[in-house]
């Protein structure tokens, strides 16, 4: 809940967790807040800096095995993200960032300890999941179909403490059946990179969680809706 004048959005460790367009999620949240007259303070926190505790939204991106393992170690040692979550901060994590929110994940052939913020664990799948990803989002979130691109070798197993973000209609996601996970104000997805660019309703959900405002006015999403329509139609026609 933002009590300050600015909505503070922290991009966690762009030096480690930013493989492909991850900056997009920060840009999109900032723009959609700005268009509603919500001033935004965007904060990029490198892995040699402490994670601020007082921000409203925390973003974690994708990463290679080595940086992913390093990011988990440093986040555990730092403790800032845990404290922020205790303060009911919003966390949006994609791909490697999503995996490391769980209890454990695999990187460089080894099991690594995660942040244990979401009740899930990840291991290696039989094949790399690369391609379009789509799914029907949990009705409790009130968000239309998820569309994105995935590129990961992991499979994620959800515990009883989280709900799947979506049921898969195309691609692999967690395991070919479910995709992503959410609990409280934490949400993770395998839709990598600028996941919010194709899912503006998800961006607005994060903004509602962070601001407590249920009256965010609608924006002109003409181009985004054309993109969504094109990508979902491409899956139907194969």
């Amino acid at each position: 809940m933002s009590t300050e004048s600015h909505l503070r959005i922290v991009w966690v460790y762009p030096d480690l967790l930013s493989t492909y367009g991850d900056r997009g999620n920060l840009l999109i949240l900032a723009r959609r807040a700005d268009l509603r007259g919500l001033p935004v303070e965007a904060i990029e926190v490198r892995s040699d800096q402490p994670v601020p505790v007082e921000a409203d939204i925390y973003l974690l991106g994708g990463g290679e095995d080595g940086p992913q393992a390093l990011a988990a170690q440093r986040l555990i040692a730092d403790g800032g993200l845990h404290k922020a979550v205790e303060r009911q901060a919003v966390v949006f994590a994609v791909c490697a960032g999503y995996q490391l929110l769980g209890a454990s994940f695999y990187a460089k052939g080894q099991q690594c300890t995660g942040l244990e913020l979401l009740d899930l664990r990840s291991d290696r799948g039989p094949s790399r999941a690369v391609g379009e990803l789509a799914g029907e989002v949990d009705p409790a979130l009130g968000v239309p179909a998820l569309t994105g691109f995935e590129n990961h070798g992991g499979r994620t197993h959800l515990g009883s403490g989280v709900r799947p973000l979506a049921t898969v209609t195309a691609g692999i996601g967690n395991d070919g059946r479910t995709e992503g996970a959410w609990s409280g104000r934490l949400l993770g997805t395998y839709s990598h990179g600028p996941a919010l660019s194709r899912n503006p309703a998800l961006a607005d959900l994060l903004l509602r969680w962070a601001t407590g405002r249920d009256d965010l006015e609608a924006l002109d999403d003409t181009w985004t809706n054309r993109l969504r329509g094109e990508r979902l139609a491409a899956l139907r026609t194969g």
Partner: protein
Amino acid sequence: MTNRRPLRAKLATSVSRGAAALSRATGRGDGSVIGGRLGLIIDPDLLAHLAADRQIALISGTNGKTTTTRLTTAAVGVLGPVATNSYGANMPTGHTSALAKAGDTPYAVLEVDEHYLPQVMAATGPKVIALLNLSRDQLDRAKEVAMMAQLWREALHDQPVHLVANADDPMVVWAASVGAEVTWVAAGQRWHDDSWVCPECGGAIVRSGEPDLAAGGAPDTDWYCTGCPLRRPAPQWTLDGHAVVAPDGSRHVVTLQLPGRVNRANAATALAVAAQFGVRPADALPRLAEVASIAGRYAQVERDGRAIRLLLAKNPAGWLEAFDMADQAPTLLSINARDPDGLDTSWLFDVDFAPLTGRQVLITGDRAYDLAVRLEVNEVPFQHVTTFAQAVAAVPPGRLEVIANYTAFQDIRAELDRVN
């Protein structure tokens, strides 16, 4: 030298040339791959046999390798005939075709896909390898950057080959620093987002001062790792405005038809490679000035009073360079995501399109909607067109810059070839 090749290699060479000619004659391809593929089936060591009696330079890196190969070929050409894979067919089949087609030449300059560098180095025993840069490129199928650097580093360790490497790219420096002999070129690095973390120790890499984009990414920006001794080596070849400064301190003004600081840096690398073959910069420079376009890249075409220039940009680092090369003029952006392009368009959000602000921007291509969403977030106004003719009609007479990724570029070239 052909006479010393084994009979199988001779047969394979002959079949390779025949297939390439057939491919061209039937219009099925330019012959740059099929000939090599057949030749390698008959003689798996054909590339090594074809390379055996030549002095060879290999050119590799994520961006600029086709251009640098062309410039290096021109520079080494001072000494005599040079075989090269000028169609950008940069895997072993392409190298085999190129050498077979060229016949006996004392020299060869080959563009090499970065993944194939260890294999091609082993097969061809090069005299020099130029290492330009490493950055993210088509991650849905390519190796991630740190893994690519590791692959190079393992392959280059103590090899009897002279490396000409970019001192401004930490990933390249880390890979090349294990080489037996290295010449460092201050070739610049506009794109920093793949080298904030030290590949050796995981420490933070610090650059002294923000890169000055107007000056072309501040070629003299120093960098060092905060956790280990990895740091920018002192370069022997540097750029000073429009001049290349050689190791002996001599300044050589580079006049190119190719635009942008990055191409002057590519010229510096070409001169450094050619110097290893004994070519003096003063002798090479007139030949570099003759290079006008490379497989259609930088080509200028007149149509309906518009002077259209084609720029190829395949990944975030390439787009940043393209914005630097392009004039302040109406600009058409075209994006596809077919197999050769990579299927993932996420990288669009790694590119800051703000340099286009103030220009008339048009978008097209299979994935124009991805561009539209990106430009909207970037607050760059744009107009969507569905054909190239629409784009031409939408801009006033004068310069039209076209920046496109791989197959989008080929589509526009085909369109221009058809009309002109």
